[in-house]
């Protein structure tokens, strides 16, 4: 994001860490219903929640976003296109000056719907894809999901939608495909968007197997520096500790510049912490979303100066700000310590130390959420840890 002189003091990063009158970037998950069951789903989506916002309530949220001058909203889910009022709602948002970027698995993006989207102003589409071939992609997103996503891209191209985005969660299995993702995006005239895998939702159960290795993180960092036009949602700021800062805001924006509205209207500090501890309120509360954003206890607390804790003595703290709150929380690490993927290895050391403690270690679990079947038992629930690595 470009910043303009004249420079004001204190720095913008300082200003942002104290919060804004309204979020810069708001994620709104429209439904927990999904026809896929990706193993890293942040929101453990699958089944619709009967308490989800009605079409009228959803429109009222748009009205609030309009009044707060939230310029655009990132819509996701679940699979947002499953909602029967999906097109009505995004049309309503756009008409009210709230631009829409929505993420979809593409399964419902038929030629007819692609044409409909192509006819709308201020709507951006992100097709999720986690591998440049069916083997790598479908291992994470499920059988048939690769060809469905490609079909959706073909449909958007045929409808002359313009520049859509291909959105990739970087994993140990696909990090070697960055150039191939780029080539695929180029072949459609699309933009490539890479985001960080979080141990959130069902990702808590699969993070150990999927998160990039230290060597891969360095490879990714160099690749991002070489391809500065790649969209990242500023999600890799923990890599800035490797040297030169990556473009974008290098800070955790949770409750300060970003937040999440979930399908039932609950407001969380960011899209990666769907957990009671980070729930600030609900759009159904008397003051609506605006008062949750401006007055909730949790967000007020997050906007206070944060302790660097165990990272205080590290020379990279200014660059990485201790990394991602959600990644720490769901791996059981203290919030004022290193990120589990700290590029200096402090996170791995902290995780190992956690595993060596003799007393019980409580690792918060996001729960199975709205998954259609029981989650995979991998032992990240609260456990008694004795020796060796984490259970």
């Amino acid at each position, binding site marked *: 994001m470009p910043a303009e002189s004249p420079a*004001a003091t204190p720095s913008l990063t300082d200003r942002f860490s104290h919060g804004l*009158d309204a979020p810069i970037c708001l994620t709104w998950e429209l439904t927990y219903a999904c026809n896929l069951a990706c193993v890293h789903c942040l929101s453990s989506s699958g089944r619709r929640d009967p308490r989800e916002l009605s079409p009228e309530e959803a429109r009222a949220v748009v009205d609030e976003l309009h009044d707060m001058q939230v310029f655009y909203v990132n819509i996701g889910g679940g699979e947002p296109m499953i909602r029967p009022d999906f097109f009505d709602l995004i049309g309503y948002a756009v008409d009210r000056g709230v631009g829409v970027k929505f993420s979809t698995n593409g399964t419902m993006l038929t030629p007819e719907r692609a044409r409909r989207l192509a006819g709308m102003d201020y709507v951006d589409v992100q097709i999720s894809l986690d591998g440049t071939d069916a083997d790598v992609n479908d291992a994470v997103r499920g059988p048939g999901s690769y060809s469905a996503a490609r079909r959706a891209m073909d449909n958007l191209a045929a409808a002359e939608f313009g520049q859509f985005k291909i959105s990739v969660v970087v994993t140990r299995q696909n990090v070697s495909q960055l150039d191939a993702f780029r080539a695929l995006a180029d072949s459609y005239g699309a933009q490539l968007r890479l985001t960080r895998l979080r141990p959130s939702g069902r990702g808590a159960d699969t993070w150990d197997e999927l998160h990039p290795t230290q060597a891969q993180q360095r490879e990714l960092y160099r690749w991002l520096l070489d391809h500065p036009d790649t969209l990242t949602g500023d999600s890799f700021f923990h890599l800035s500790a490797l040297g030169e800062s990556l473009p974008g805001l290098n800070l955790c924006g949770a409750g300060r510049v970003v937040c999440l509205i979930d399908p039932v209207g609950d407001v969380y500090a960011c899209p990666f912490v769907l957990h009671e501890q980070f729930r600030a309120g609900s759009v159904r509360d008397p003051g609506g979303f605006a008062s949750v954003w401006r007055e909730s206890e949790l967000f007020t607390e997050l906007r206070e100066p944060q302790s660097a804790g165990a990272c205080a003595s590290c020379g990279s703290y200014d660059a990485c700000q201790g990394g991602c709150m959600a990644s720490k929380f769901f791996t059981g690490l203290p919030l004022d310590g290193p990120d589990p993927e700290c590029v200096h290895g402090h996170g791995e050391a902290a995780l190992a130390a956690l595993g060596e403690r003799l007393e019980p270690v409580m690792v918060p679990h996001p729960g199975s959420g709205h998954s259609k079947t029981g989650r995979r038992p991998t032992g990240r629930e609260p456990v008694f840890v004795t020796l060796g690595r984490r259970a």
Partner: protein
Amino acid sequence: MSFQPARPYEKHPKVAIRRESFGGLAYHYGNRRLTFLKAPPLVELVEALGGFASAAEAIDAHVPAGRRAAYERALAGLLDSEVIRAR
């Protein structure tokens, strides 16, 4: 064309500005770019540009004399990112 203080400009019609304590956020609905306006007078200046015969006159009206050069540079940057446009 590069920014020239003697010429008239205006806020781009596709740009909306949200005021914040540090200045404001400008969002361009066409190119989807978000730009930070890092001082409250810059927000006033951008909003008022269209009512003046030249950028220089708008600056005279909204900016302390000693800060003129900084604000000209800021407007030049805002022209590049299409927050303002020539008229």
